[in-house]
């Protein structure tokens, strides 16, 4: 339910003055049976039947597949006939060295993403908002949004063309200047930096949209009053723009913190390579390799389950923390 309120909050942020209107019919307070409503609103229920069926089959039924994390799963025997083995698989996972490696990588990569990547769209949005030339603004926005629309496979391919030590454009330029090649993608520490920066590159432009929307929702009278008081541009940014978009920032921060246990499979898969495995192997790639490549379904399921449960708990904690901060006052 807490999560539900997060969503509602986001909606209120995006749609500031949601009006609560109602059909007068619904306000008539009389007790009636379910059949009455089914008959009256049968068309609505009919429409809902399709998405409900889809959701039950493809989102809820797979949850029952989680039992294989507690079973000695055998494809031939099926779910029901496999033997229960309790928490044995979890015990095995917690003894696995590889598990701690992927856990560390997932957390470190996501944390770096958050630290470097989260402020980027905020700064960019504030800068874009200061641009007065409409044509320049439009063109730069179009270009800045572009990477968001490109798949990770393509980004991975492009980055290898740009950054490889042998033939990449950047290293060719460096060599021309008489410098050594930099192993952007083939040395672990360099790879981590490249991975994070490419993430910033891909998301910063698109991320500005929500902040620009929030900024455009700020009452202009604030700025006018500040101008009258003699406030400079920077002062207006610090004392009006940022405080006004603070709720948006906090909400997005919560949502991002909740994803700290998640892992972007496509991104890691397209940018990783065997040389940097030690740092690039994250939970989702681990699940893929153990489960779908080595057919150890129960181990992979258990690891995935661990990831979702911890991730879910993190969202709730983040939400609580944000609420507490929100109550204790503004900047």
């Amino acid at each position, binding site marked *: 339910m807490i*999560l*539900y309120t997060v*969503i509602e909050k986001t*909606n209120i942020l995006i*749609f500031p003055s*949601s009006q609560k*209107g109602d*059909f007068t019919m*619904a306000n008539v307070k009389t007790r009636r049976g379910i059949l009455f*409503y089914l008959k009256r609103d049968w068309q*609505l*229920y009919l*429409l*809902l*039947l*399709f998405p*409900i069926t*889809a*959701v039950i089959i493809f*989102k809820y039924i*797979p949850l029952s*597949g*989680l039992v*294989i994390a507690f079973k000695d799963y055998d494809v031939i025997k099926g779910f029901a006939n496999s033997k229960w083995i309790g928490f044995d698989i979890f015990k095995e996972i917690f003894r696995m060295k590889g598990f701690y490696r992927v856990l560390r990588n997932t957390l470190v990569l996501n944390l770096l993403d958050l630290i470097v990547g989260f402020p980027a769209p905020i700064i*960019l949005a504030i*800068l874009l908002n*200061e*641009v007065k030339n409409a044509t*320049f603004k439009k063109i*730069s926005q*179009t*270009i*800045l949004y572009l*990477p968001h629309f*490109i*798949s990770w*496979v*393509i980004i991975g391919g492009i980055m*290898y*063309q*740009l950054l490889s030590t042998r*033939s990449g454009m950047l290293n060719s330029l460096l*060599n021309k200047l008489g410098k050594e090649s930099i192993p952007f993608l083939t040395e672990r520490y360099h790879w981590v930096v490249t991975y994070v920066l490419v993430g910033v590159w891909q998301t910063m*432009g698109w991320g500005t*949209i929500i902040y620009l*929307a*929030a900024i455009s929702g700020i009452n202009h009278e604030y700025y006018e009053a500040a101008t009258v008081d003699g406030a*400079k541009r920077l002062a207006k940014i610090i004392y009006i723009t940022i405080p006004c978009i603070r709720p948006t920032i906090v909400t997005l921060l919560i949502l991002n913190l909740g994803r700290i246990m998640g892992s972007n*499979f*496509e991104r890691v*898969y397209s940018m990783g390579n065997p040389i940097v495995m030690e740092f690039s192997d994250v939970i*989702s790639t681990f699940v*893929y390799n153990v*489960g*779908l490549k080595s057919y150890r379904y129960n181990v992979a*399921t258990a690891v*995935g*389950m661990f*990831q*979702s449960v911890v991730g879910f708990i993190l969202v709730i904690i983040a939400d609580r923390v944000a609420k507490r901060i929100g109550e204790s006052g503004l900047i």
Partner: protein
Amino acid sequence: MMNLSKVTDKLADIFIYTIITLASLACLIPFLHVAVLSVSSNQAVISRKVFLWPVGFNLDAYITVFKDPSMIRSLFLTVVITILFTALGMFLTICSAYPLTRKRLKGRHALTVIFLLTMYFSAGIIPDYLLVYNLKLINTIWSLIFPLAFSAYNMIILKSYIENTIPDSLEESAFLDGCSDIGILIKIILPLCKPVLATLCLFYAVGRWNAFQDALYYITKQNLYPLQLKLNMLVNAAQDTQSISQEINITTMLAPEVIKAACIMFATLPIVIVYPFLQKYFVKGIMIGAVKG
């Protein structure tokens, strides 16, 4: 004093425009470089002379790619999958969002929660895989269409849009005129939602076009590879000249970098061509929802 503030203002402007220009260039140059590589000559690419301007312009790599029937089949397959996926996704989104905006609907809250929870819970790769396997959808295009067709996030966007921009009085009067719920949806709600519907279509289509994770899990037959997966195999798996030439059946000797660049452009161009036209629509859709209350 007045003058000084004008000077600092000008300096601030220069700073802002420079930063944004640099950021835009950073977004543009990688694409430009690959585009230029794909139309340059072998020798120039191998001797690392190509940066942002083609050297020895030719279209051999594209001819090679277009002559490869497996590439064209992948493209066609991806187009079909994207269209079907978008159509189904939109249908499910409309069918869920519209009834949930009717305040008189019994069980509205519980139903909303059922949809929203799907954003937070995921059974994970293996249970999803086993479901698709049990439904006998492995190695069919339907494995790339059904599982992801419903998006709670998109449902919220449409639902909020309807709630916030369409006055209840409009539907009320249609209702009093004897219009049924589905009639109201088709005749009143949908035409008024055009901008947001366009946005959602784009969300679904671009998402499907670009995704390859599920294809990697569910599609093992080469002749069913969608474009992104095919590209992944080309770019990732084939790092050496030998295998990439075999993969794409080339008889002419072309540098693998050039072929790779052409393949990347082949998969990127459809998006890049369509994107500037839709982008306007798309951001507008989000902005309308954001600004209007």
